């Protein structure tokens, strides 16, 4: 057991800490995870409007200033990070799970059933995700969706490219010698599937989980920004919607910091995900390494 833990450290964790991009990406993501867990427990949230303090500039009392209603922006960002991060992580996880299951199934099932799965994957590839997501969100708009349901709505439009890649991977693994050997040794099919193929796919799935973060963030923030899913008033997408359209913060010079800090946090969190996935790509493909 101890050996497998240290192996895991040397195989997966250590390279991540050694590559500069993945290290910075990890640090950014960890800061936001800390914000969502510890921060949200420590920082109070007072959503009562206080017009006397409207559009205060950033100060010690209000690190990100206050919004149109005089509510502290930092508090909202901290509490919003909980739904932003849980929604993003859950949507990425679901997308990767669906993609992996469908992809492995396609890799294993040949013939007519395989062709049908191929067609399903292709259909999801040719339907443009964001417009489809908008319609799907409109269908469920009146129902109060929970976190899992919104994440699923997002994940439905993210899994297909991954499924296609994984099915290609499985098909190529299937024809390798060691699988052939397992077959000749008369090992049961399930054993071959779960031990050999899954083992090879784990790093692949891990990379893709990180890569999905960008898409899942963009989709969920976009959904909230358009006001198509009501979930949590401090979700950054909803904050951005308030800032731009309800409060019209960019029409007055005083409101600039309101939009700025919301956008900054959205971009920084996605940037963390982008850096981490670039770092992982470099680790697995050393030729890509640039300026270290």
């Amino acid at each position, binding site marked *: 057991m101890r050996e497998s833990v240290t192996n895991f450290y040397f195989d997966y964790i250590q390279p991540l800490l050694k590559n500069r991009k993945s290290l910075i990406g990890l640090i950014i993501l960890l800061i936001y995870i800390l914000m969502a867990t510890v921060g949200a427990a420590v920082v109070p949230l007072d959503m009562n409007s206080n017009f006397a303090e409207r559009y205060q500039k950033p100060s010690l009392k209000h690190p990100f200033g206050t919004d149109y209603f005089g509510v502290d922006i930092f508090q909202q960002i901290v509490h919003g990070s909980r739904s932003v991060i849980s929604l993003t992580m859950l949507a990425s996880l679901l997308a990767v799970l669906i993609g992996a299951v469908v992809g492995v199934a396609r890799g294993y099932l040949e013939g007519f059933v395989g062709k049908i799965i191929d067609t399903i994957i292709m259909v999801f590839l*040719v339907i443009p995700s*964001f417009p*489809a997501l908008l319609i799907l969100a409109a269908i469920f708009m009146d129902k109060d969706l929970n976190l899992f349901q919104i994440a699923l709505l997002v994940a439905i439009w993210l899994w297909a490219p991954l499924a296609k890649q994984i099915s290609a991977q499985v098909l190529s693994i299937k024809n390798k010698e060691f699988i052939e050997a397992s077959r000749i040794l008369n090992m049961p099919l399930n054993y071959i599937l779960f031990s050999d193929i899954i083992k090879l796919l784990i790093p692949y799935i891990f990379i893709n989980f990180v890569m999905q973060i960008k898409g899942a963030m*963009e989709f969920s923030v976009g959904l909230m920004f358009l006001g198509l899913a009501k979930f949590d008033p401090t979700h950054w997408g909803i904050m951005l919607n308030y800032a731009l359209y309800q409060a019209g913060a960019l029409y007055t010079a005083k409101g600039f910091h309101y939009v700025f800090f919301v956008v900054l946090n*959205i971009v920084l969190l996605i940037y963390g995900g982008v850096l981490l996935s670039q770092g992982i790509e470099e680790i697995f493909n050393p030729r890509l390494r640039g300026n270290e």
Partner: protein
Amino acid sequence: MNYFISRLLYLLVVFIVAVSGIFVLVNNMPGDPAYGLAVSIAQQRNMPIDQALEIARNIMGIDPDESLLTRYVKFMANLLRGNLGYSAYYTTSVNDIISTSLPWTIFVISLATFFSFIVGIFLGAFAAQKRGTVIEWIISTLSSIIQAVPPFILAVLILFTFSVSLRVLPLGGAYPVDVKPSFSFKFISSIFLHALGPMLATAIPQIASWTLAMRGNTSQIMEEDFIRFAEIRGLRDTVIARKYVRNNAVLPLVASLAIGVGYMLGGHTLVESIFNYPGIGFYFSKAIAARDFGLLSGLFTLIVIGVIAATFIADFVYALIDPRVKLK
């Protein structure tokens, strides 16, 4: 040739399944497309909403008792004749709306994509050649940061910076209302001025992704054995860079260029509605808001046709430019 026929048939099946799925989704959206018109009729003529709703449905040609299946059969039959349906909100055929809006979308997308492809190829190759220098660090870091900005946020920022604060760009439309379309300098320059915002919002994220892709491809190819061999043969660096590295690095990107243009049709929805630019994405978001099921299904069908055509062209282009890919 056989490969193309079977590929075409397969894509046709994919198209039918995709369009049917979209049709069911769209027609399951809550809300009554006649409601908006009914409210204004009820206010104008001072009558109860039920009565007004009936009149509105008559005007818009909506039969509430028609089953989903009948509507589906009608939709597919129309599609077969090249008729993408009828917009109840704009009370005109979807084909008419497309013929006025699609040119604007294609204008913006193609120009933005062409420009960003050229710039991205240049920047990516440049960064790869300057590996390990500050220049490479700046180019890749900037590209990564741009990649982290969701496109619709970029569009909003461009709109507020250039149209609201600085007032150098117009607030919406494809050309000013008081200018008549003609081949005058005034009209053509106003077209470019109005398209500039949407073009920037489309081009900037693309420049970043082409740059990163080109940098990655170039770095990989520079490590290949045949590059070493070319160096040993004593070829000049510029020849190696142009003929051996750049050509091989651009090749895979040309194929994704075709697919990219196809997907842009769908991805352009938010950009156009943020800039109020009258392309198909603008009408798409209007159709969602007005619950115009006919227009929605029609536009969605058009976008899917675009993506499928792009996929097919990409296959073809790839086979054409890369001798290693032989068509079965």
